[in-house]
């Protein structure tokens, strides 16, 4: 425990102390300028990493937020005579508000559309800054003086220290945010938006929040940028800067505060690298060497494809050769950025910090902080009284896809406290029915009632909020998160700490409680020992059980298990049955879709059989098994011609 704190916090403190101490010993205004820029870009890239690293979206609008923040602060000072804190506050607010406004429409989009939206936004911003001459001075630029901070006029060193302190502050706040349920939700979104919705964690809300926070940091850095250079031009915030910022985040390493700052250091140093021919040749040669080593190693242990090994070598090789042929490397600046970024994206996708962290963690084996003892199951899943009345009712439910009637007029009732089996041959409409109930699809017709009230239609999130949780036939785990975190993402009723307090680190206690509750659920499915393993590294059976634990974390009234035994080996099936029985004892109603008849017979109080989208039989497991229509549905008709 102490070793961990000492190493991690120690490294942070040491780095911070070193950086802060430099101006005391070195009196070089050029170096000081670079260091100040490093602190500002550090904040900027931490913000960019929220969308690029945590949300996993290609964000091409961050340079525009830097520009917006810079102009906001600049104008506050020149036009309104604001002091530094107020101006920076305005910058932060501008980023937050415009970020949220942009995110509202843009984040409904995925991948390319999102990148396009942010790209258009940044072009629109630069156009506006350029054309609104009466306000911004247009292409002429905006001249400003650095205002006083609480009556004190900061010199170069003073301003540098301010930037460093702010970087340290941002670092701490973001660390608190990203290690809380917010950070987990961001990452969950990236791995499976569908599951995030289905767990009742509003995908959309968290995405907008994440993007707004990242953008706010961007424009906050913009305010500092304005006070640093004291001269602004719209031209500084164009596309090229955006590519450099992405280079910083990707090269430094995504999803890492260290990575963002290391990336900032690299992009601050790059221009110097390019202006010195000798230095450039040394660095490109080093890059080539790294690419060759990484490529050969990757090929040897077959972890990379040939393209992944060869392409970076070709790219770095052309940097080396080009460096010899070209008279002025500055002219080829963009091409050099491009080739470097290409090599990193293809050859070293985890970035420098990812690489170094892996190396360091082999060097010092640091034990993770200990987990609390699991909570009592009663605290997590309060036992519900059994009452024999309908919990869920389907009335004439229909769902068509083009000419195919996947669910065709299905009516059934699921009684409270029952395990209700839903069976039928392949393509009989079981999964579609469940997808309609859980809100993935809107019904073509008919009604679904929970507790006698109509369920929200076509929204996984809203259905999850009223107490229906589900698992997926094709697993939808958050692969990059640990087993424990998978459960904690979905956990209901624990996270109450308001955001400002959480940022300041006051959520530790509820975090412990969440861990304890989640561990209890992992214990219920027999995975307490693997709490720290990444979900994608678990065995297939364990992944299935983890999905069940995660669904239980929603503390549902109704749990829908969509083919939980699919692909399981025989011993795992036995364990699955035991798990389902344990859940049933808590009084949770279960709909079980299952192919394995033995599982159905053993567990289900009542069974509905679907065929061709229609209900063909309903009753106890034994009854339906003898039902002639069911036998026919499963074995086919013996027809005579």
């Amino acid at each position, binding site marked *: 425990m102490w070793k961990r704190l000492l190493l991690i916090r120690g490294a942070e403190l040491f780095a911070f102390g070193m950086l802060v101490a430099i101006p005391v010993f070195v009196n070089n205004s050029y170096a000081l300028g670079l260091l100040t820029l490093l602190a500002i870009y550090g904040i900027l890239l931490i913000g960019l990493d929220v969308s690029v690293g945590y949300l996993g979206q290609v964000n091409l609008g961050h340079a525009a937020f830097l520009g917006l923040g810079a102009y906001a602060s600049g104008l506050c000072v020149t036009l309104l005579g604001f002091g530094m804190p107020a101006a920076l506050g305005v910058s932060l607010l501008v980023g937050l508000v415009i970020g949220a406004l942009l995110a509202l429409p843009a984040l409904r989009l995925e991948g390319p559309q999102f990148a396009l939206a942010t790209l*258009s936004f940044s072009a629109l911003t630069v156009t506006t800054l350029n054309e609104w001459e009466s306000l911004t001075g247009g292409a002429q630029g905006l001249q400003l003086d650095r205002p006083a901070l609480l009556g004190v006029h900061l010199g170069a060193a003073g301003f540098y220290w301010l930037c460093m302190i702010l970087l340290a502050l941002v670092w701490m706040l973001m660390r608190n945010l990203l290690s809380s349920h917010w950070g987990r939700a961001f990452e969950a979104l990236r791995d499976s938006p569908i599951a995030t919705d289905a767990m009742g964690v509003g995908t959309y809300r968290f995405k907008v929040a994440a993007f707004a926070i990242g953008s706010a940091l961007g424009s906050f850095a913009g305010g500092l940028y304005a006070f640093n250079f004291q001269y602004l031009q719209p031209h500084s915030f164009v596309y090229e800067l955006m590519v450099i910022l992405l280079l910083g985040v990707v090269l430094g390493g995504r999803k890492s505060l260290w990575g963002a700052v290391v990336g900032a250091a690299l992009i601050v140093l790059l221009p110097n690298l390019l202006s010195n021919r000798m230095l450039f040749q040394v660095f490109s040669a080093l890059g080539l060497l790294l690419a060759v080593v990484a490529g050969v190693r990757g090929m040897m242990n077959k972890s990379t494809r040939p393209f992944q090994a060869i392409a970076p070598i070709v790219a770095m090789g052309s940097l080396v050769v080009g460096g010899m042929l070209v008279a002025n490397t500055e002219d080829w600046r963009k091409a050099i950025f491009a080739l470097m970024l*290409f090599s990193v994206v293809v050859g070293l996708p985890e970035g420098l910090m990812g690489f170094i962290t892996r190396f360091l963690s082999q060097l010092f084996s640091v034990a993770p902080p200990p987990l609390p003892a699991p909570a009592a199951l009663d605290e997590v899943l309060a036992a519900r009284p059994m009452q024999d009345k309908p919990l869920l009712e389907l009335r004439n439910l229909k769902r068509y896809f083009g000419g195919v009637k996947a669910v065709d007029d299905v009516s059934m009732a699921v009684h409270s406290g029952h395990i209700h089996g839903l069976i039928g041959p392949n393509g009989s409409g079981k999964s579609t029915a469940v997808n309609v109930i859980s809100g993935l699809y809107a019904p073509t017709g008919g009604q679904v009632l929970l507790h006698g009230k109509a369920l929200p239609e076509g929204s996984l999130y809203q259905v999850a909020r009223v107490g229906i949780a589900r698992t997926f036939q094709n697993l939808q785990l958050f692969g990059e998160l640990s087993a424990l975190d998978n459960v904690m993402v979905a956990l209901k009723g624990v996270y109450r700490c308001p955001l400002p307090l959480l940022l300041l680190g006051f959520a530790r206690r509820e975090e412990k409680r969440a861990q304890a509750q989640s561990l209890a659920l992992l214990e219920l499915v027999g995975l307490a020992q693997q709490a720290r393993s990444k979900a994608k590294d678990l065995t297939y059976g364990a992944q299935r059980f983890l999905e069940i634990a995660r669904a239980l974390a929603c503390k549902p009234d109704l749990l829908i298990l969509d083919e939980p035994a699919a692909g399981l080996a025989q011993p795992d099936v036995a364990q699955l049955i035991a798990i389902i029985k344990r859940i049933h004892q808590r009084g949770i109603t279960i709909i079980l879709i299952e192919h394995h008849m033995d599982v159905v017979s053993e567990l289900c109080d009542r069974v509905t059989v679907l065929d061709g989208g229609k209900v063909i039989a309903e009753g106890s497991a034994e009854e339906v098994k003898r039902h002639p229509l069911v036998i026919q549905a499963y074995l086919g008709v013996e027809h005579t011609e």
Partner: protein
Amino acid sequence: MSVIVQLVVSGALMGMVYALIAYGFQLTYSTSKSINFGQGELVMLSAFVSLSLINTGLPYWLVVPGGLLFGVLLGLFVERAAVRLALEQKGEGWILLTVIFGLLGFSAAENIWGRDDRPFPTPVPSDPMHFFGIGITPLEISVAIGVLAVMGMVELFKRKTLLGKAFEAVSADRDAAGLMGVSATRIIMLSYGLSGLVAAMAGILVAPITTVGPTMASALILKAFSVAVVAGLDSGFGVVVVGLFLGALESLASFYIGSGWREAPGLILLIMALALRPNGVFGKASIRKV
């Protein structure tokens, strides 16, 4: 009144070029759900290469196929170097990688041909002809004809040849297409080649009007993005309609608000379209699958 009509007509003719580039996005999007973010540089580089071909003294009717061939090769290169790996890994790395190749192309053009804009000679005269009091230059007409001809030919190819049908089959269902012996990888390559051809054609058509320079396509491409997104990435008919509309709109905006604002309508339209109809005005809603 006649001023407005004049603005609308010449703007709309320019909009045809946006439509053509947007059509190039649709070609690759339909087969692979990816687009080349460096498509603007492809337009620009093809125009530069065509200009160099003209300067070697090649007749115009040989320059055009030469420029188109270059566009196809560049499209194929982008697919191989930037897109294929990311698609195999089922990620969105291609966005960043195509952005990177765009930057590389831009830098190459800056250093090989210089940063200045240069005129692009053309055999088509640019003296306006008058129809009902509206001046239209033969150059503008040649742009419209060129755009429609290329789009028409690609559509004919898609509908009337078996390879074209295979193209549509891959868009509809990659796995099933594989079972027919249609290699999705090849078809995606083909779509990037076609997209390169379309971009090159756009470059050659627009160059006499805009002149040729490294930045000639940076504004063009933003508008093409807007057109593609507003129309929806799967509607060939839609891009023409939206292209005409946007061209006319921005021509009006630049006259009445100021020429610096000519990009604004497209960008605002794009953000609005994303907010209101994320799949585009002419697009189809997609079904989430688990």
